[in-house]
């Protein structure tokens, strides 16, 4: 039966009842944004708030998807119902994307829900749609919800920072730890994984991380009460996966027992509100730029009778002079 003629409410009812095609459709609506996405949000945001949202990030090719597949199997074996949101970049030229994370997740049981997401060019949109997608999955009963992003830009880091628990994946021999430091990933890490620990240089990578954690500006940024553990993993062989799962569960317990979970959720809400407002304001500004008032301001700036700063102020504070 086709889902096309169903209303958002009907789709949500089905998704909450476990209809996976309805979940898939709702995720498309959320990714697209707009009024329908907001309707979905209205229906789902109060559900599934217990689900543990786990962010997994690291350099391209670090083995994130391979590890996520193993983690999913471990969670499934422990009678949890995991879902994955795997984010890959869209081509800036064509808007298209090849989403290949599922190749590494081929062995995963079909009871786990995997969704491949393209960044679609607007970074602001990604920061909005990913939390929304996580909420749909949580409302549908999936727990944990694992978000895989490539840790390259600020947005990807931000998206991962919107998780309850963030796992940063590095690999031996590429100066990954140093790169992760530069990319701002170390500050957001609750757990480090040295993946490909079967390769030479794994213990050096571990030592690099330990050294960087020693530096006071790294430790204690986010949560001074706890030092992020470093877990050595061989995702191909599945070694160390139970330790990663253990560290993830331990971090969740830590958040709950110290009331930090609420604080993280507060931060998530703040961040999402800010992203949403920023996007709306950007769109508003773009519309403004084509009005005759702004055209007149542009002339004033060109003629030297108004400074760009004061014209800009009038754009967002129409009453300012």
């Amino acid at each position, binding site marked *: 039966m086709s889902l096309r003629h169903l209303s958002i409410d009907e789709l949500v009812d089905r998704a909450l009842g476990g209809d996976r095609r309805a*979940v898939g459709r709702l995720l*498309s609506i959320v990714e697209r944004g707009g009024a329908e996405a907001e309707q979905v949000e209205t229906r789902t945001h109060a559900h599934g708030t217990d689900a543990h949202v786990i962010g997994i990030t690291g350099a391209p090719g670090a083995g994130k998807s391979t590890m996520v597949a193993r983690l999913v199997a471990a969670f499934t074996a422990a009678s949890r119902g995991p879902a994955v949101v795997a984010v890959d970049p*869209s081509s800036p030229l064509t808007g*298209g*994307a090849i989403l290949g994370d599922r190749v590494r997740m081929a062995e995963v049981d079909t009871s786990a*829900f995997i969704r491949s997401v*393209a960044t*679609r060019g607007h970074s602001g949109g990604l920061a909005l749609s990913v939390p929304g997608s996580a909420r749909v999955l949580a409302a549908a009963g999936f727990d944990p919800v694992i978000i895989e992003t490539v840790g390259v830009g600020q947005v990807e880091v931000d998206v991962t920072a919107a998780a309850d628990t963030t796992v940063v994946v590095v690999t031996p021999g590429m100066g990954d730890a140093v790169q992760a430091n530069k990319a701002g990933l170390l500050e957001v890490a609750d757990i480090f994984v040295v993946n490909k620990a079967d390769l030479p240089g794994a213990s050096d990578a571990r030592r690099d991380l330990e050294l960087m954690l020693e530096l006071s500006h790294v430790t204690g940024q986010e949560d001074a009460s706890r030092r992020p553990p470093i877990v050595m993993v061989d995702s191909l062989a599945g070694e160390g996966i139970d330790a990663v799962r253990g560290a993830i569960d331990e971090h969740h317990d830590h958040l709950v027992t110290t009331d930090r979970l609420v604080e993280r959720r507060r931060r998530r809400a703040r961040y999402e509100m800010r992203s949403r407002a920023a996007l709306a304001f950007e769109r508003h500004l773009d519309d403004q730029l084509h009005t005759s008032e702004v055209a007149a301001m542009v002339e004033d700036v060109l003629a030297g009778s108004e400074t760009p700063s004061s014209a800009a102020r009038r754009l967002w504070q129409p009453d300012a002079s």
Partner: protein
Amino acid sequence: MSSTPPPPHRIVLAKLGLDGHDRGIKVVARMLRDAGMEVIYLGLRQTTDSIVAAVEQEDADAIGLSMHNAGHLTLGPAMLAALEEAGIEVPLIIGGIVPDDDRPILDAAGVAAVLGPGSSAEEVVATVRAAIDAA
């Protein structure tokens, strides 16, 4: 509220069955990406069940299956049967070497289109778009 632009088409690409060449399907994946589509690439040795699950989870608009081991007459209809059983109405496009005599059989079975090995990017993209628009 400003209206949202239509999202890119999403297509699941996979190889069904046992043969292990993925060059052709990767070329097709790039053609579709370069035409602005989101290609969810599943890789080799998929089963009808794994493809059905992926199409549900990914809310795909189309499925592209590549087969080079002359399995199209059994695997194509098996895929269609699995989709029908799952209640999924998504066009199925088959890529690979399909003899002319077999095409009417696949058409009759409900395969939306067949793309031969030498298809150009224009043909591939136009065929996928037409199949999605007709669905």
